[in-house]
C-alpha cells in the first residue's frame, strides 16, 4: 500500500490520491504539440465543442421527446417547439450541430489526407477516426428517425432496405432490423435506444481511443518535418520557448484552439438563429405517412456522396459500389504505398489525386441530391466511376512516388 502523509493542502491531499500534478503534466502542460501547425489543427477541438453542444442539447430534448409513433412528431413540433421554454433553441442547436459536425469531420479528414497524417505510426489515429465517422453516421441516421416525419419514415424505409442485399433477397434480415415489415413502433423505439444510448457510448469510447492513438506518434505538422519531441521539449522547458519546435498542449495550443473555436461559434450560432433551413429539411415537417411517398427522397447532405455511388448502377453493382465506398477510406494508410509523410503539394501525382478526390466527392454530393435524370445521371455515373478509379490508382501512383 502506498504511503500517505497528512495533507498540507487540498491540492496535496488530491495529489497523494490522484496524482493530479502528474496527470496535469501528462495531459496538458507536457503534452507536446508541434508549433508549425495552422488553424486546421484546431478542428479536433472544434469537433469536441460541437459534440458537447450535441450532447447537452440532446439531454434537454430527451426530457420531452416521446418515442411513440403516435406522439413522436407532436412531442417534437408541438411540445418542444411551442410549449417548452427554449425548446426550439435546443432543437435548432441539435439539428444544426448534427449537420455542421459533418462539415468539420470532412475538413478534419481531408486535412489528414492532405498532410499525410495517417502514415508512419499514425495509422491508428486514422482508423479510430474513420470508426468515429461510422459511429457519427449511425448516430445521425438514428437521430433523423426520431421526429417521425415523412423523411424519417422514408429514409428509414430506403436505408434499411439496403440490407436486403439486392439479389440476395435477405428480406428476413430487413425485417429483423426493423422489428416489423415496415418502419413502425418497434423500429422507432430501437433507433431511439441506439441514438440516445448505444451509439453515444460507442462514440465516447472511440473519442478516447482517437485521443490515445495520438500520444505515441504525436500530432503531425504542416511541413512534414520529423521532430524529435524529447529534444525540443527539453529546449522549451529550459526557457527557449521561441526556439523550440514544440508547444504545450495547454495553454499554448489550447489558446489557439479556443480562438478558432470562438470564430467557429459565431458561424455556428449564425446558422442556428438565421440560417437553419439547410439542416432541418422541410419535408420532415410533414408527419410520417406510409401511404404517401415524398416526390424526392434524399439523405442529408453528408451522406449524399455515398448515396450517389449507390444510385447510378443496377441494384447489385450499386450495392457493391456502395459497400466499397463505405470501407475504402479506412484502408487509406495501407493503400498509400509512399513512405513520404509530407503535404500533398510535395508528393508528385498524389497532389492531383487529392484535389481530384475532393472535387469528385463534391460532384457526387451534388448529384446525390439532384433528381437522377438526364445529364445529372450521367455526371453521377462518371463521378462514381471516377471515385472507384481513383482508389484503384492510389497504390500505383504512390508506389511510383519518389522519396521526398
Amino acid at each position, binding site marked *: 500500500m502506498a504511503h500517505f502523509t497528512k495533507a498540507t493542502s487540498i491540492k496535496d491531499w488530491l495529489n497523494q490520491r490522484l496524482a493530479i500534478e502528474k496527470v496535469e503534466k501528462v495531459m496538458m502542460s507536457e503534452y507536446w504539440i508541434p508549433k508549425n501547425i495552422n488553424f486546421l489543427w484546431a478542428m479536433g477541438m472544434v469537433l469536441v465543442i460541437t459534440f458537447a453542444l450535441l450532447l447537452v442539447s440532446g439531454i434537454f430534448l430527451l426530457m420531452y421527446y416521446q418515442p411513440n409513433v403516435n406522439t413522436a412528431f407532436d412531442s417534437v413540433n408541438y411540445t418542444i417547439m411551442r410549449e417548452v421554454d427554449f425548446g426550439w433553441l435546443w432543437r435548432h442547436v441539435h439539428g444544426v450541430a448534427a449537420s455542421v459536425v459533418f462539415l468539420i469531420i470532412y475538413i478534419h479528414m481531408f486535412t489528414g489526407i492532405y498532410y499525410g497524417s495517417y502514415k508512419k505510426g499514425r495509422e491508428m489515429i486514422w482508423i479510430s477516426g474513420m470508426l468515429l465517422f461510422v459511429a457519427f453516421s449511425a448516430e445521425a441516421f438514428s437521430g433523423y428517425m426520431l421526429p417521425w416525419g415523412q423523411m424519417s419514415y422514408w429514409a428509414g424505409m430506403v436505408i434499411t432496405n439496403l440490407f436486403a442485399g439486392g439479389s440476395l433477397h435477405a428480406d428476413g434480415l430487413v425485417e429483423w432490423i426493423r422489428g416489423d415489415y415496415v418502419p413502425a413502433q418497434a423500429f422507432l423505439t430501437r433507433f431511439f435506444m441506439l441514438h440516445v444510448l448505444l451509439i453515444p457510448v460507442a462514440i465516447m469510447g472511440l473519442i478516447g481511443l482517437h485521443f490515445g492513438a495520438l500520444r505515441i506518434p504525436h500530432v503531425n505538422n504542416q511541413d512534414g518535418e520529423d521532430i524529435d519531441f524529447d529534444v525540443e521539449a527539453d529546449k522549451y522547458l529550459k526557457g527557449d520557448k521561441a526556439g523550440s519546435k514544440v508547444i504545450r498542449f495547454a495553454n*499554448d495550443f489550447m489558446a489557439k484552439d479556443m480562438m478558432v473555436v470562438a470564430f467557429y461559434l459565431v458561424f455556428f450560432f449564425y446558422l442556428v438563429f438565421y440560417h437553419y433551413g439547410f439542416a432541418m429539411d422541410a419535408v*420532415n415537417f410533414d408527419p410520417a405517412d406510409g401511404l404517401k411517398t415524398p416526390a424526392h427522397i434524399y439523405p442529408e447532405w453528408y451522406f449524399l456522396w455515398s448515396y450517389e455511388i449507390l444510385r447510378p448502377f443496377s441494384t447489385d453493382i450499386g450495392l457493391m459500389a456502395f459497400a466499397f465506398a463505405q470501407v475504402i477510406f479506412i484502408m487509406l494508410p495501407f493503400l498509400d504505398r509512399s513512405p513520404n509523410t509530407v503535404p500533398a503539394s510535395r508528393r508528385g501525382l498524389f497532389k492531383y489525386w487529392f484535389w481530384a478526390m475532393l472535387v469528385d466527392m463534391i460532384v457526387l454530393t451534388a448529384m446525390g441530391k439532384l*433528381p437522377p435524370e438526364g445529364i445529372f445521371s450521367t455526371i453521377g455515373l462518371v463521378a462514381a466511376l471516377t471515385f472507384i478509379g481513383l482508389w484503384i490508382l492510389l497504390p500505383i501512383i504512390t508506389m511510383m512516388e519518389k522519396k521526398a
Partner: protein
Amino acid sequence: MKNKEPLILVVVIIFTLVTYYLVEPFAHSQMHKHVESEHFAYADLPAPTKTGDVARGQELVLGAAACTGCHGIEAAGMPAPMDAVTAAASYGVNPPDLSNAGLVYDAKFLTDLIKNPAHALMVEHKFDINKGQMHPMVPFYGAGGDMDQEVADMVAYLVSIAPKAEDLTPAMAFETACGRCHAVHYEKWTQIGSKPMFKKKQDELAFDTQVLDYQDSLKAYMGKLPPDLSMYIRSRGEHFISTFVENPQNYLAGTAMPRVGVTAESAEKVIEYLEDSGDTKRHERESIGVNVMLYMLIFVIFAILWKKQVWRDLH
C-alpha cells in the same frame, strides 16, 4: 516561412460554399417548380363594371338571390340554416357564414363566384354542367333586372357588413378562407370550429364524433381529407403557401382544392396564422439571436487576446 493560413481559409470557405450552393439552392431549384406570385390580382377575372348599391344588395342577398337558404350571416342576425355537420352531409362542405366575406375575399372574385362558382373557384374540371356535375353552390341566374348590376349590389352589401380592414385578425382570415376544410390541431382548430375544453369526457367524445362525421362528408366531397396545416409554414414555407392559395392549379393541375379568392391582405393574415401555429417562437428566436451573436463576438475578442498573450513568448 510565409503564413499560409489566409489561403487555406479561402480554400476551405470556397469548397464549403460551392457544396452548399449545389445541394441547397441549386438542387431545390431543380426539384421544385417555381411559381411567381401573381399578387392576388386575379387577372383572369373581369373587373366589375357597375357600382353596387348596398340597400338593393341587402334585399337581394336576404331575398331574391336566396343566399341565406344555405349561408348564415351572423353580422345581419341570420344564423346558419343548418349545423356544420348536417350542412357538410348535404353539400360536402359547410357553406361559409358571409359576415366576413366582403373583407376576406377579393371583390372581383366574389363577383365571378356569384355568377359561376366553379369558374371562380377553378374547379370546372370537377364540376362540368354538361356532364351533369353541379357545383353545390347554385349560380345566381339574375333577379329580373340587369344581372351585372344585381351582382355588384350584392357584393357592395357584403362589403358593407364586413368588419373594417384593420379589424381583420389572422384567425378570422384563416377560419373564413381555409378552416372549413383544413384542421390546425396545434391551434385546436377543427373543420367545425375551435375545440373547446370539456369537463365531461362524454361531451368531448360527442364533439370528436361530430368532427369525424364532418370529415367523412368532406373526404367524399374532396376525394381525400384535406391536410392538417399545423406545421405547413415549416414544411411548405411562406412562398409556396401564398402562391398555392392564389392558384392551386399552378402546382397541382386537377387538384380538388379550389382557388379561395382571398385578397393579398387576407393571405398575409392566413400566413401569420400559420406562423403562429408552426413557427410560434420566431420573434423570440430573432431577439435571442441578436444577443447570442453579440455575446459570441465578445468571446472572439477575448479569445484573440488570450491567444496573443500566450503566444507572445512562443514566436
